[in-house]
């Protein structure tokens, strides 16, 4: 089933609830500025539009990506603008979509396939792991795999089963894949443009609960000489007492937590990991060397989640300075529950605050 997002956050109730059916409005750019206000859906749509315009080998396809513009409207209008051979619908088969992507890449294209929802990446895992991630290696570099796989990801929209999954730990473990997730419209625009011009396969995990949230996008950022490409992690808020590490939709939640903690005099640094593979270990260590304490937050289940890797990288790099073991505030080791229970499952503000408290109150011995 497709997302019931629209239904669950009706326009009247939530600032996030711009209708997915609304056409992408023109960027509301103040005169003379390079900054526009866009929702993440608009930012992604704009990035794809530009990628198609700049690279004649880029092609976009997936279930309902063409005429409908995708169930989240990320590819809205692109078929009309770039033609049905650049942007097209496929039959309903995810292994087919990924296998076809591998073949198109072998023919010199840059495929940008979409898997409609996180949970429907599983039927494509064989092609992702055994083929897309290995063809460059197997062919000794002769057949690169410049494939950008977009996956609307994570929970928080009261969706049907399998529409709220977090697969980053699985993807990050697979040799030959790179994995990235944006946390806001600005990041979405730049990370997608960057990912979709790389010669290696990138899994692009879009936090679907943030699609309709607006934010400022500086369209130049990645072009300015000192900015450099959007690789590595990014400090979203500087702080001195503790580092919160997060990605995707959890970054905004951690920023909220930081505001609340500030009221109690706790100065929280928030690090948006952005790249889930390769992980920016240097940035983790730099932050925690300073704060000496860390909590990592993710929606995926605890056990063998990416939080373990992040925690271990921090421990490895900051063993001497760390004042407490790194805490993990994550989803539980249970199947993602139905809407009624999802607020119990996803790390909420309380649980993150408890995690911070445990770290701050940790006493040796």
């Amino acid at each position: 089933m497709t997302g019931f997002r629209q239904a669950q956050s009706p326009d009247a109730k939530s600032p996030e609830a711009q209708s997915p059916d609304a056409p992408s409005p023109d960027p509301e750019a103040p005169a003379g500025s390079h900054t526009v206000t866009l929702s993440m859906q608009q930012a992604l749509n704009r990035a794809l539009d530009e990628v198609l315009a700049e690279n004649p080998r880029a092609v976009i396809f997936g279930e309902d990506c063409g005429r409908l513009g995708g169930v989240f409207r990320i590819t809205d209008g692109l078929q009309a603008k770039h033609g049905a051979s650049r942007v097209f619908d496929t039959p309903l088969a995810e292994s087919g979509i990924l296998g076809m992507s591998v073949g198109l890449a072998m023919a010199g294209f840059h495929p940008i396939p979409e898997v409609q929802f996180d949970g429907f990446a599983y039927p494509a895992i064989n092609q992702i792991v055994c083929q897309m991630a290995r063809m460059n290696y197997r062919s000794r570099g002769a057949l690169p795999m410049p494939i950008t796989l977009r996956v609307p990801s994570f929970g928080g929209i009261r969706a049907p089963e399998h529409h709220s999954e977090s697969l980053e730990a699985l993807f990050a473990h697979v040799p030959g894949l790179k994995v990235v997730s944006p946390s806001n419209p600005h990041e979405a625009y730049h990370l997608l443009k960057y990912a979709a011009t790389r010669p290696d396969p990138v899994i692009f995990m879009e936090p679907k609960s943030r699609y309709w949230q607006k934010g400022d996008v500086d369209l130049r950022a990645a072009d300015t000489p000192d900015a450099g490409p959007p690789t590595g992690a990014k400090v979203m808020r500087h702080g001195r007492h503790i580092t919160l590490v997060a990605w995707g939709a959890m970054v905004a939640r951690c920023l909220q937590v930081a505001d609340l903690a500030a009221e109690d005099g706790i100065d929280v640094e928030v690090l948006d990991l952005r790249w889930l593979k390769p992980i920016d270990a240097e940035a983790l260590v730099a932050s925690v060397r300073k704060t000496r304490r860390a909590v990592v937050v993710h929606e995926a289940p605890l056990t063998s989640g990416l939080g373990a890797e992040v925690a271990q990288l921090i421990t490895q790099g900051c063993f001497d300075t760390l004042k407490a073991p790194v805490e993990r505030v994550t989803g539980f080791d249970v199947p993602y529950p139905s809407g009624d229970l999802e607020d119990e499952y996803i790390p909420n503000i309380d649980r993150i605050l408890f995690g911070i408290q445990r770290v701050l109150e940790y006493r040796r011995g």
Partner: protein
Amino acid sequence: MDTLPLPDDGTAAAPPTPDELRELYSLMAAVRRLDASAVAWQRQGVIPGYAPELGQEAAQVGSGYAVDTSRDFVFPTYREMGVARAMGVDMVEYMSTHKATWHGGLYDPKTSRLAPIQAVVAGSVLHAVGWAHGQTLDGSDAVAMTYLGDGASSQGDVHEAMNFAAVMKAPVVFFVQNNGWAISVPTERQVAGGSVAARGAGYGIPALQVDGNDVLAVLEATRRAFVHCRSGNGPVIIEAMTYRRGPHSTSDDPGRYRSLDEERDGAGEDPLRRFRQQLLSAGLADEAFFARAEASAAAEAEMVREGLEALGPRPGSEMFDLVFQETTPALQSQSASWREESEHV
């Protein structure tokens, strides 16, 4: 298309009795009403989402009605409210999945003989094959019926399921509702060759294509298929040609991919109106009957609404307790800290 041989003893499945015919109509009326109500409830905020089956009442009720719930087992997708209703599943427990109470629904699949609602397209076709093979191993004559759509037919699992079923002669009815659309993609850009039933030949599986808007044709085809399966002849494919008259789900906007004209042309005759005419001309029902059916459908929908409104959220502890039959230390400790941090106990 019909490659299903007559039974060995030459007898066809029994035709429905007048009482059965009236019951079929009442079921279809109840389903139509409940379906329309569910869409309204979604707009009113009673439930967060719903996948309507408007136009598919004949396909669903006709096939579900053929099931013998004392032995058979049915594997639905996410759109088989009509099948569930025809099988007698509790409708509040069924609709609870659309209230986001519990994925799969609250009904007991074992007693109701309906597997949990399945959100993975083509996710359960193979389960039907496994379950059916279990019947063979047990020497039972029970049949598995699995539902799938035109879109689902593209999934590799459907091929594996048909091939396994045919190799093992498993008693499975593959019931395809070809409703013309998979979200925004029409059948002609989905199903190469144009028909899922036509694929049966490639596996040596007998197949039938039926008018999915004709409840009697559907019922007859399904009964014939069950007879075939029960006698140890292996699987059958039924492709019921119908039309998804509504949106894919309450968050879909069909106006983006099909015009109202196209809808009118594609939808064909309304299955309810058609069956009503048949009953009328056969003298098996009168206006009073239809009025009663309508009234009881309305009353039923109202009861379901009340049941859904009364339905509270499940306790969060179920998240942990229902993962395994034998729980684990990690789950116990996560459950304990969840209780502490979220319920503050």
